[in-house]
Every structure is written in C-alpha cells, then in structure tokens.
C-alpha cells in the first residue's frame, strides 16, 4: 500500500524556538496504524528530535494523550484510517490548557497536585486487626464505584473542559471522579475529609456541566456524572449542617 497521510505536528523547544511551529511529515497510511505508530515512525525514520510521551500502546498507561485534529485523544487508540478521508493534514498538538515542556510533552504537575489534594486512597478511621479478616464487599457495592476506578489519569478530560481552560484553579473532572471512586467505596471512611476540598468553589461548584469530560474519556468514566452526583451530596450535607449545626459531620 503506497498510500500516505500527512501529519502536521506541533514543534516547540523552549531553548531553541521563540515560538511554536508546525512541521509536516508524510507517513505510510497503514490500516492497522494508530497516530502513535505514525509518531514513532517519524521518530525512528524521519526526525529523531520529535519528542512525545508514550508507554504501553494499549490504553492503560494514559501517557500518550494529545490533541488530534483539535480533539483530546489517546493516540494509541486513534486510528489513522479514521482521518484518511479528511481534507488537509492531520494536526497533532500537545494537550490543551497545559504548559508545553517540549513538542508534544506537557507539564501536568497542576493535575498531580490536585489529584493528591482529594486523597484518592482508602481512608479508615481505625483499621481492624488482621485476625478479623478482610474487608468484604458485595458485587453491588463494587458496582457503585467501579466505573470511576477505570480512570487512568490521562488528563484528556482536563483538555476537554472549558471551565478548566478559563479558570485553572478548578480542581477538574478526573480528580473529582477519583474522589468519588473512594467516597463511594464501602470500605472507605474519608468522605468528610474530602468534602473540605471538593465542596469549595474551586471544587465541584466550578463545574457548569458542559459534559465534554465524559464525552472524551477513553475509559468510559463519567466525571460529569460524578460531579453532579457530588453536588447533590454536598447540598444535602450543607442543609443538614444548617438544620443540625452540631451533629452533622
């Protein structure tokens, strides 16, 4: 198959370039190739200086997220052939709303800090002794949070979220979805600790329910749903603390 597809790839090296630019590459259009394969082809055969993150090639590690024709995508799961019929070259850019380190690599410390702030781990008031056995969970209890546990921290949802774009203090979709993953876990007792962070204006109340986060999620997590769900929880807690000022927590 002699067919090729043109890629227009974002290039930026802060030490060298005053401004970012786009570089065009022609790569073989193979039916089984994803955008990441094309980038690896460029790096191996055409231009070794192209920089991008990737690891597992199977939608687990969450490191190859980029903007493909303006949409946040995992490049390991985005087939070139889907774009073959489109006019003009395929544009590959770094994930939107994050600072660029070099070429397609972005700096996600902001997300990592926010993620940590919601304490995404099991919190127990008091651990029971090992002799009492494990913490059992029914399939129904597992189902309550399971979809949120599928998040791979690829931050596509941040690049899709216009609220995060306008106001970067917003804690963002994945962090809230992951907080809910633990809040809804029957073994967890840390919901009130997370509430201090989540119920602030920069937490759930920043969200205006655009819903793009859920649309772009490659793992079918529903962060927008998690946020709306949590708005209801926070509202109920607020009314409870109003009605029972001392006993609410």
């Amino acid at each position, binding site marked *: 198959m002699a067919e090729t597809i043109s890629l227009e790839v974002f290039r930026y090296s802060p030490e060298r370039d005053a401004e970012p630019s786009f570089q065009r590459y022609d790569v073989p259009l193979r039916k089984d190739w994803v955008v990441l394969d094309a980038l690896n082809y460029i790096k191996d055969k055409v231009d070794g200086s192209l920089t991008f993150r990737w690891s597992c090639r199977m939608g687990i590690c969450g490191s190859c997220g980029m903007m493909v024709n303006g949409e946040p995508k995992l490049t390991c799961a985005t087939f070139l052939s889907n774009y073959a019929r489109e006019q003009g070259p395929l544009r590959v850019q770094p994930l939107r709303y994050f600072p660029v380190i070099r070429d397609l690599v972005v700096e996600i410390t902001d997300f990592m800090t926010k993620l940590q702030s919601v304490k995404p781990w099991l919190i127990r008031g008091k651990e029971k002794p090992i002799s009492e056995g494990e913490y059992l969970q029914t399939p129904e209890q597992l189902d309550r949070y399971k979809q949120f546990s599928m998040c791979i921290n690829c931050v596509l949802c941040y690049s899709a979220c*216009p*609220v995060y774009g*306008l106001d970067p203090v917003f804690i963002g979709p994945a962090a809230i979805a992951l907080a809910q993953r633990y809040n809804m876990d029957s073994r967890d007792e840390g919901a009130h600790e997370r509430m201090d962070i989540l*119920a602030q204006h920069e937490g759930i*109340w920043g969200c*205006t329910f655009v819903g793009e986060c859920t649309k772009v999620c490659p793992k079918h997590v529903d962060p927008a749903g998690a946020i709306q769900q949590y708005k209801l929880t926070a*509202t109920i807690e*607020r009314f409870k603390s109003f009605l029972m000022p001392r006993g609410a927590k």
Partner: protein
Amino acid sequence: MAKQSNEPVLWALFSAGGVFAAFVIPVHLFLIGLAFPLGWIPAPGYEYLHALVRLPLARLYVFALCSLALFHWAHRFRYTLYDGLQIKHLNELIFFCCYGGAILGTVWAGYLLWNFR
C-alpha cells in the same frame, strides 16, 4: 467545612427549577399552545380557569413554578455571562442582577397571586 459557600443553596434552587420547569412547562405548552386552540381537548372556559387559580394549592403551584424557574434562569445566566462572555471580573454586579432579578420576580409573583381575586 473550611469555607461555607452559598453555592449549595443556589444550586439547589437552580436544579429544583430546572427539574420542575422541564417536567411541567411542556405540559402547559402542549395544553394551552396546541391542544386547546386546535380543539384536540375541549378548552376550559375563563370562569373555570379563574376559579382554578383561586384555589390555594393551584396558587402555590404557580408561585413555585414562577419562582424556581426564575432561580434556574438566574444561575444559568450568571454562568453564561462568566464563561460565555468571560466577564467574571464583574462578579458582584452579575450576581446581584441575576439573583436580585429572580428575587424580584418571586416577590412580584407572590404579590400578584396573593391578591388574586
């Protein structure tokens, strides 16, 4: 809680207004806008509707519909101005106008319904 925000109260009004309006306004539109004028359902007379609105429960219903729908509008419009027009720096003014408008509308609806004869 570290910082008590007003947002839960405003959001509760917003979401109650949204749900209420989404469920009942289409019914009103269907009845008054289509079914009655096109004769699909025999239209009730003026006297009948007048008597209906005089019932305290019907008045409460109309009041809740007007007020909650206005609070729904206020919340949505506030965020449209913040994000759509990106004028968040006018925060206080927008907040005052949106929810102030909703409160004004609520008071007005209350006044009219209270004095409905």
